[in-house]
């Protein structure tokens, strides 16, 4: 193995181990920021030693043992006399006297809880949503600052700053390293799910930039969602979100045309939908349903996505069920965006005029003011009604509002098509 090979292997080991490492260390030092630094130190130690000594048989245990030694040193140095910490130090030392296998088991047994604590900490409402995203990808996704910066098209120092500031907030606000209980749990869980879906969506329909999709981000979000589903198997909304992401990701290949342009759902070649992901998505949705109770917002959205996934052709889509699911979603989580999507479904069951009536009611909605999909949907319905003049103007408005270059090109194309129909039908 060459030095480069070893470095690449270390990268891979670290990608696999870093979240568990940070989570386990955070339990000992009760400070996620310090835990992350200790994990980094262990990585540096591995980079120093493994190229010469070879990669150990159990690299995860090696990293954990190395980091724990440093954690104990740190605790001793930092607190010296604080009894609580000494006690922890003694506990750890006692544990280290056990055989390596016992230690592994001990790590293994607790690591799930630790990971869950880490997820809840990274997504704590005390942080801005950008900071939550950065922390989650860094602490749980094992992404480097550079990778996060590239994914979100922001300069690396900005992301580094966000993480540094977030770690400071974490210490100052004394955010406890724990899984919230009782009534707090629901609110905190929804914050976690929101962060994962934000990451997924940034990958699925990039809000800015030249690419319509950034699949790596979708994969990161899905991976974290799947991990969370294992850690919190009794939470229906976790399965709901995983189902939603799996089914949406199943369309990745079909929603990009040969030159990178977006392809809309009903125009997609359904044969290119990923059947493995669809199956996984439907299974996750089933798990959410089996847990009982009314479906939550993510499970409802997944159920809507499933209606599309089950239809072999666009004509087979069960639009009536989609309208009913949007009704439920609008009751549960009312939002003008849901109303807009519902209007699209209504247009499919009751005709474009009925859909347009609902969309028109939304044009005065302040929160949709800069939302490019409103004029885009309106343009689509107007075109279906043969009102090409108005449709063209709406597509142009939508094009001016989107920040994604690929999407803008598609909207301008549709505007041009409307103009063409008008000029062709002109006397």
């Amino acid at each position: 193995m060459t030095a480069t090979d070893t470095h690449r292997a270390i990268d891979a080991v670290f990608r696999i181990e870093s979240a568990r490492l940070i989570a386990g260390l955070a339990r000992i030092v009760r400070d996620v920021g310090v835990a992350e630094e200790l994990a980094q130190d262990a990585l540096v130690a591995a980079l120093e030693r493994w190229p010469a000594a070879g990669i150990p048989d159990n690299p995860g245990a090696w990293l954990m043992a190395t980091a724990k030694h440093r954690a104990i040193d740190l605790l001793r140095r930092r607190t010296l006399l604080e009894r609580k910490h000494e006690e922890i130090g003694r506990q750890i030392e006692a544990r280290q006297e056990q055989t390596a296998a016992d230690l592994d088991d001990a790590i293994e047994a607790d690591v799930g809880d630790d990971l869950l604590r880490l997820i809840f900490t990274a997504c704590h409402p005390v942080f801005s949503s950008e900071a939550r995203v950065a922390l989650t990808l860094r602490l749980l996704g094992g992404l480097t600052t550079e990778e996060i910066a590239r994914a979100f098209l922001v300069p690396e120092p900005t992301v580094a700053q966000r993480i540094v500031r977030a770690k400071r907030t974490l210490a100052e606000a004394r955010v406890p390293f724990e899984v919230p209980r009782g009534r707090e749990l629901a609110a905190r869980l929804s914050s976690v799910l929101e962060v994962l879906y934000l990451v997924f969506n940034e990958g699925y329909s990039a809000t800015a930039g030249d690419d319509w999709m950034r699949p790596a981000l979708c994969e990161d979000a899905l991976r974290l969602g799947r991990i969370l589903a294992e850690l919190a198997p009794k939470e229906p909304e976790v399965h709901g979100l995983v189902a939603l992401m799996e089914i949406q990701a199943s369309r990745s290949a079909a929603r990009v045309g040969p030159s990178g342009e977006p392809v809309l759902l009903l125009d997609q070649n359904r044969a290119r939908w990923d059947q493995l992901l669809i199956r996984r998505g439907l299974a996750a949705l089933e798990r959410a349903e089996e847990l009982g109770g009314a479906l939550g917002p993510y499970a409802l959205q997944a159920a809507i996505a499933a209606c599309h996934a089950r239809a072999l052709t666009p004509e087979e889509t069960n639009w009536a069920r989609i309208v009913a699911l949007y009704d439920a979603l609008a009751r549960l989580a009312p939002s003008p965006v849901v109303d807009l999507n519902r209007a699209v479904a209504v247009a499919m069951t009751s005709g474009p005029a009925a859909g347009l009536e609902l969309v028109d009611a939304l044009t005065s909605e302040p929160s949709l003011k800069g939302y490019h999909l409103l004029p885009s949907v309106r343009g689509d319905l107007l075109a279906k009604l043969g009102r090409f003049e108005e449709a063209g103007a709406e597509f142009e408005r939508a094009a001016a509002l989107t920040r994604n270059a690929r999407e803008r090109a598609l909207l301008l194309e549709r505007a041009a098509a409307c103009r063409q129909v008008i000029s062709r039908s002109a006397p």
Partner: protein
Amino acid sequence: MRFMMLMIPKGYEKAAPGAMPDAKAVAAMMKYNESLQKAGVLLALDGLHPPSVGARVSFSGGKPKVTDGPFAEAKEVLGGYWMIQVKSKDEAIEWAKRCPASDNEVIEIRQVQEMSDFPPDVQKAAAGFPELQAKSGQGRRS
């Protein structure tokens, strides 16, 4: 990216029909499978019955010819596979290294081809392939 980890157990080419791994090996393997699942990387996995109850269809001379297993000429055969989604080949290798495999077993790591891996002309020629996939067993919807 997706990888197949292909399990090749030496000796499986001669295994009798109904040959099964022992319970202890299965328990260790289940723990491994769980670790893949918990890490969010496992997409699918399956184990295969031995070739002694399988068949081979060869096409020498352009005509299909069926041979029932076991296959005398086979030096190594598949015992099963895992499909995983990871960031790199190195990560796939790292996962494979953690498998509690026995002395006689080999894991081959192969990246799954995506349509975007092909040059445009091949993409065009293969345009019907995903349709085929959807219509075959892979497309069964539950």
